[in-house]
């Protein structure tokens, strides 16, 4: 049964008269039982008519005596108008006039709850999902409706609000079941059966169904003059009449103003909504690890100048290729705990990185499969090596960036000096501890970073002699220190610098990252 109360009766009648479909009537009566929406339109319609005729014959049902007393005297009149419609169709054609013929398009949902809630449309949607080839065992239905539905909903609400006020019933607009929800309740069981998946509101796999209705696009336009501040043109939006903006404007506009500008109940449309292409999206998978870079000719990310690639390959592409194909993802976003220059190697335990795999079609991977992927990456090139590869959460990825400034990094550098080196020079360097340096943004990155002076700390250094003009410098520094500039001084823009400390001109010929002391991601036992 429809679980309608006596007090719903005048509302049912008024909505049917206005040209609402059966499911919209249930919505405005705040029927919250999913199953009520799953019957066919015709069946719900029949039940509504039966419900009305009960009152007509004066029978008592689930309603209390109080409700009866509340019935207005005008009830008969209303019913007569319905009847007149039934017999002569001279009135605007109400739904119940032709229960078996193709009913006219609903003035409120523009057909969404009439023509798209049955098996044939569900099959159409599910075919698209199946073609996508996703691996999933639950899904989330997302429904997007044309903005003008909110206007029509508001008009219809005002239409019965008058009635409700007369009967001093306390119902809020928020209590009305939304078109979106009614639509989901009507089809979700069918979709679930067809795809063999459960419906979860927090599922990672989202199937989006959308509708448009070109005919009534203009329904919103009067709001632009009434509440101009709600509609600001945005670069990325085709129209200013977004659903959010329309909802906001409807909250602001007074009922009187609305009624002056827009028919109440809404006018009958000539056509129904058109479904948009169904789209699928699986939420991203995040995979993390550490990488070594053994080449001085491999950039971390593709190096493009004036639209032209400067070097073959990159760390991120070498790592991403096997992952993209195994997860069957559309794209990836690479991030890491700092980065090294193209001519810098990353040795030791490697640099933490994480990769977002966008819209993966195959998500489930066992630990063994992930290890296999790591081996595939490592076998693909001798320029890089990956360890600790693992699937992580989006939240855990934050740990990698958190420590970026505070953590320490260790480097090994090959240094040249203009003057001949003495052992005393190297001892001086080795004795320096916790040296504070002021670095202006290096000229080599100044084109894409703000100009600033940043204080960084060189925690310790040690030098080992190679020949009269060369030595190896080991440094432990605060993350974010520009090592090359510390050595050659960058036109005196890093102070103090190694050349100044040694009272000569110094240059850096080679640089290796020896360790990045970020304790994430956790080690994966071999």
């Amino acid at each position, binding site marked *: 049964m429809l679980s309608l109360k006596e007090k719903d009766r005048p509302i049912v009648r008024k909505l049917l008269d206005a040209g609402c479909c059966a499911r919209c009537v249930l919505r405005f009566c705040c029927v919250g039982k999913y199953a009520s929406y799953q019957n066919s339109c015709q069946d719900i319609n029949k039940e509504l008519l039966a419900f009305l005729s009960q009152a007509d014959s004066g029978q008592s049902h689930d309603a209390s005596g109080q409700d009866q007393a509340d019935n207005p005297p005008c009830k008969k009149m209303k019913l007569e108008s319905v009847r007149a419609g039934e017999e002569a169709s001279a009135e605007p054609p109400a739904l119940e006039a032709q229960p078996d013929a193709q009913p006219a398009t609903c003035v409120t949902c523009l057909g969404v709850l009439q023509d798209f809630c049955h098996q044939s449309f569900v099959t159409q949607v599910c075919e698209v999902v199946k073609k996508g080839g996703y691996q999933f065992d639950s899904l989330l239905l997302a429904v997007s409706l044309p903005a003008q539905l909110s206007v029509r909903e508001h008009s219809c609400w005002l239409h019965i609000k008058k009635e409700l006020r007369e009967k001093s019933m306390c119902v809020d607009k928020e209590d009305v079941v939304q078109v979106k929800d009614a639509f989901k309740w009507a089809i979700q069981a069918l979709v679930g059966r067809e795809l063999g998946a459960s419906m979860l509101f927090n599922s990672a796999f989202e199937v989006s169904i959308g509708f448009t209705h070109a005919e009534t696009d203009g329904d919103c336009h009067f709001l632009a003059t009434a509440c101009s501040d709600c509609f600001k043109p945005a670069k990325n939006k085709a129209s200013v009449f977004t659903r959010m903006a329309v909802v906001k404007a409807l909250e602001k506009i007074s009922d009187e103003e609305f009624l002056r500008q827009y028919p109440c109940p809404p006018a009958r449309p000539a056509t129904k909504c058109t479904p948009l292409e169904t789209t699928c999206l699986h939420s991203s998978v995040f995979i993390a690890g550490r990488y070594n870079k053994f080449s001085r000719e491999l950039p971390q990310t593709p190096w493009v100048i004036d639209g032209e690639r400067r070097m073959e390959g990159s760390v991120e592409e070498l790592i991403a290729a096997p992952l993209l194909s195994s997860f069957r993802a559309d794209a990836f976003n690479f991030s890491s705990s700092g980065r090294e220059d193209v001519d810098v190697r990353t040795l030791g335990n490697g640099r933490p990185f994480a990769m977002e795999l966008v819209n993966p079609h195959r998500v489930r991977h066992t630990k063994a499969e992930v290890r296999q992927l790591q081996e595939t990456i490592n076998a693909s090139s001798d320029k890089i090596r990956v360890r600790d590869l693992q699937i992580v959460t989006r939240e855990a990825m934050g740990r990698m960036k958190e420590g970026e400034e505070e953590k320490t990094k260790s480097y090994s550098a090959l240094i040249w000096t203009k003057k001949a080196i003495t052992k005393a020079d190297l001892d001086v360097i080795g004795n320096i501890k916790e040296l504070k340096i002021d670095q*202006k943004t290096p*000229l080599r990155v*100044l084109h894409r970073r*703000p*100009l600033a002076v940043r204080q960084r700390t060189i925690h310790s250094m040690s030098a080992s002699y190679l020949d009269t*003009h060369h030595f190896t410098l080991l440094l432990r520094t605060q993350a974010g220190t520009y090592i090359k500039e510390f050595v050659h*001084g960058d036109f*005196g823009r890093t102070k103090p610098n190694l050349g100044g400390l040694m009272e000569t001109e110094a*240059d850096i010929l080679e640089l290796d990252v020896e360790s990045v002391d970020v304790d994430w991601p956790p080690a994966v036992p071999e």
Partner: protein
Amino acid sequence: MEETDEKAPSVIDRYYTRWYKTDMKGKSCEDHCVLQHSNRICVITLAETHPVLRKGSKIKSINYRISDGCSRLNNKVSGKSKRGGQFLTEFAPLCRITCTDNVEYTIFSCIRGRLLEVNEDIIMSPDLLLEKPSTEGYIAVILPKLEESKRVTNSLLTREQYEEVVSKRTTQQPQPC
């Protein structure tokens, strides 16, 4: 040992291209050098043939206030896009250098672009300019517009052209500057 010294390419050799403007504004031997990084940033310096470096006298003062209303020291840039920096054209003066012989020289921008910074260190230590004119004694840093970055050096000379100009000077005029 001296060999490594000469052979190894310096930071400037590795990352910058040297461009020259000779006889700036028709003034004999007032040569400027622009170091353009591969990322388009330009460092303005004195060429080694500039009279300030050649004649051996000391510097009395360096003044970045180029008119009553405008001082390059007031230049401030903010953000990645370097908003607020003074926009300079080729012949915009950057600073004036007065030598101990009371001769004043004006140093110019040489290229169009946004002024990012001037070298304040040389105000207090003018000797930096004499000792390390192409590194710590630089004059200013300028960022050309992205779309102009290839063109801004069109009117400048390459290192080879500059050397040619300089060698002609020595043969034609026995005592150049």
